[in-house]
């Protein structure tokens, strides 16, 4: 039986075909974090990938900045229902990162300064779909938005785009990260509303 809300809809917003189901447009850049914002100096920052055999590849900030850098314009979608269209970022493609990594693993756990984790299948990280981003809208990424660097996986809900990212651990089997252990979906595709368990 359909439920209608009497008198609702007078202030409705424009719908947009770029908006996944159940999302609304925002011009702001809201913040969603589980704890205080870590403040990481780029001189202390590193990014490391550990493969399923335990082999480690890592970059300092300067080494990472020497990798090829992409300009990315993309829509982002937060599970808390806001979407922001046409955001601009700069970062290093995960394809570039994985040029330096030998692996047959199928899944990655992203780890962040501050202890946050999130799991992402490798097929969602490779093929021009994901970056380690360090600029937003032409400026260095603010700490509250994940600076100095965050994962950017814009085709999944934005909790997968781990803020303050410091590395990936590669795994043969999928495991839940932080929000995934706290009620959110293992995968997180906004177009099929993979929001919650």
């Amino acid at each position, binding site marked *: 039986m359909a*439920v209608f809300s009497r*008198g*609702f809809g*007078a*202030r409705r917003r424009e719908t947009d075909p770029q908006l996944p189901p159940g999302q609304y447009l925002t011009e702001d850049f809201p913040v969603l974090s*589980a*704890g205080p914002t870590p403040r990481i100096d780029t001189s202390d920052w590193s990014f490391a990938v550990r493969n399923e055999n335990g082999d480690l590849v890592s970059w300092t900030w300067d080494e990472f900045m020497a990798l090829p850098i992409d300009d990315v314009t993309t829509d982002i979608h937060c599970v808390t229902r806001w979407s922001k269209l046409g955001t601009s970022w700069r970062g290093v493609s995960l394809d570039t990162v994985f040029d330096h990594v030998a692996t047959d693993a199928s899944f990655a756990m992203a780890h962040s300064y501050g202890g946050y984790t999130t799991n992402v299948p490798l097929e969602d990280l490779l093929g021009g779909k994901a970056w380690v981003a360090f600029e937003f809208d032409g400026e260095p990424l603010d700490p509250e938005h994940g600076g100095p660097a965050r994962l950017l996986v814009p085709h999944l809900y934005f909790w997968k785009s781990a803020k303050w990212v410091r590395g990936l651990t590669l795994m043969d089997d999928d495991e839940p990260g932080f929000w995934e252990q*706290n009620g959110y979906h293992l995968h997180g595709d906004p177009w099929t509303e993979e929001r919650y368990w």
Partner: protein
Amino acid sequence: MTVGGWRPARIAEVADATPSARVLRLTVPGWPGSDAGQHVDVRLTAEDGYQAVRSYSLGSYGAGESIELAVDEIPDGEVSPYLVRDVRPGDELEVKGPLGGYFVWRPGGAGPVQLIAGGSGIVPLMAIVRAATDASASASFRLLYSVRGPENAIYRDELARTVDPGGVAVTWAYTRSAPSGWTERVGRLDDDALRAAVWESDREPVVYVCGPTGFVEHVADALVRLGHAPGRIKTERFGGA
């Protein structure tokens, strides 16, 4: 916890809480209950089928088919003006939940608990205050509630009653205007105010901070500066539209 689908809900009661906020009591047949601190998605459907969904924290917790939301109006918002100005008892909407497994409190923890709310950030913390009081755990709880002025405090009357024996200790902070007779500073929470109101860091409290993004960033940074371990500070931010 499995969330399940949309559940029809009926507005049972509305009460003005502040000039811009209302407390809504909803009846949700089959509601599975919730932990203190959780939230719900609310879906509204216009008669032509147009829908909008927003998330709201629950002021209620526990079992039963009655849940409570407190909604603060965002003037240029789409959903909150409807819920604050237009909705009346008997109206219908849908809810999904309960949602969120991290910013929650469950009875059984041993150590002290500090709650810090800014504005409408009180809502999930009110659920925790009620749960702690019902669990006879309130002696280890403190609440610091920052509002623009006394008229902006959601749950003001209920919080005034919690100072009764067995209630949670409440410290008020006013950023713009204080009630008459107020002798403390008026303004944004600073390190001194936090030091005075918050459990000492060496007692290792779990701290819940909820409010607008700027408030939560400011308070969480200050708590870390005052020696609280980041891993014991749980935050929930309201932002944007």
